[in-house]
């Protein structure tokens, strides 16, 4: 009697670690905020509250930059898949913004915590976000200096939403610096 193929061990086993579960949970929250935000009307494409960045910053403060990178990129990819925007221009703009803001956070996280709190991180991330988007738009979508006319509006939006998101992150982090079930290890 031959062995049934269903009884054989899988050729490739992907162990799911606690890191994976944690990143998946945070990403789910960030994606939910991305979807919710897509329903909000916007006066100008690109002017959005960026609520998902609250999650990314919270992950950065709690679990370090590597986790924030995963959550930040996963929410752009998965969010765009759910919205039907994957590989559309809007997806690349969002990706450029996310990459620029995560790169900025890579350096900004070394700012002394005593003087610079979540609001600073959020403001820097928000401005890097519009910076990355407008640079990509200039290079690729609108190859004309005219796109820079929008910069003052984007900067104002980044200032307002960056501050508000930063205050939310500061408050959430003050209430709960790290969930109890993750306190052992995982600090990168």
């Amino acid at each position, binding site marked *: 009697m031959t062995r049934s193929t269903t009884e054989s061990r899988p050729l490739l086993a992907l162990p799911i670690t606690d890191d994976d579960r944690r990143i998946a*949970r945070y990403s789910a929250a960030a994606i939910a905020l991305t979807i919710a935000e897509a329903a909000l009307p916007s006066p100008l494409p690109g002017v959005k509250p960026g609520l998902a960045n609250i999650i990314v910053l919270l992950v950065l403060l709690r679990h370090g930059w590597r986790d924030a990178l995963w959550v930040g990129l996963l929410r752009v990819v998965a969010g765009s898949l759910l919205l039907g925007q994957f590989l559309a221009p809007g997806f690349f703009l969002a990706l450029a913004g996310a990459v620029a803001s995560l790169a900025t956070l890579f350096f900004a996280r070394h700012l002394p915590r005593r003087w610079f*709190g979540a609001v600073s991180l959020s*403001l820097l991330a928000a401005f890097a976000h519009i910076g990355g988007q407008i640079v990509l738009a200039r290079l690729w979508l609108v190859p004309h200096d005219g796109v820079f*006319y929008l910069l003052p509006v984007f900067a104002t939006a980044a200032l307002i939403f960056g501050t508000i998101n930063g205050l939310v992150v500061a*408050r*959430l982090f003050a*209430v*709960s610096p790290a969930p109890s079930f993750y306190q052992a290890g995982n600090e990168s």
Partner: protein
Amino acid sequence: MNLPEELRTLFATARQGAPQQAWHTLFKAGDWLLFGVLLAASIAAYPLLWKGGVADRAIVRRDGQVVIELALDAPRQVSVAGALGPTVIEITPGRARILADPGPRQICVQQGWLTHANAIAICAPSHITLQLAGKQGNYDSLNY
């Protein structure tokens, strides 16, 4: 609702009387500093990036050929020879006009001061045009 556990704990803590904190205490010194710098930069961005319509020189042409270019920084009057006789152009800082022209209907004279980049006054009988130019104009041409 099936929230991620982190968020559920977080919302629960926030609901059940986490110590109330005034929002401004969440700002640290460096946060205020950075906020101030970015606020100043954002405000400064408006005039810096939206001054495209400002004219900085006047170009006088006869039959389409440039006769003279005048900077709009100091008041002066210039007389240009047109097809019917001299056309007088007056400049004051930031604007220019045709002060006098021998044309029969005086259309370009009555147009008055030109203030925006690419605004143009045409004295057709004299074959003279006066056009303002800036670094970047809002319009290809302006006429009234």
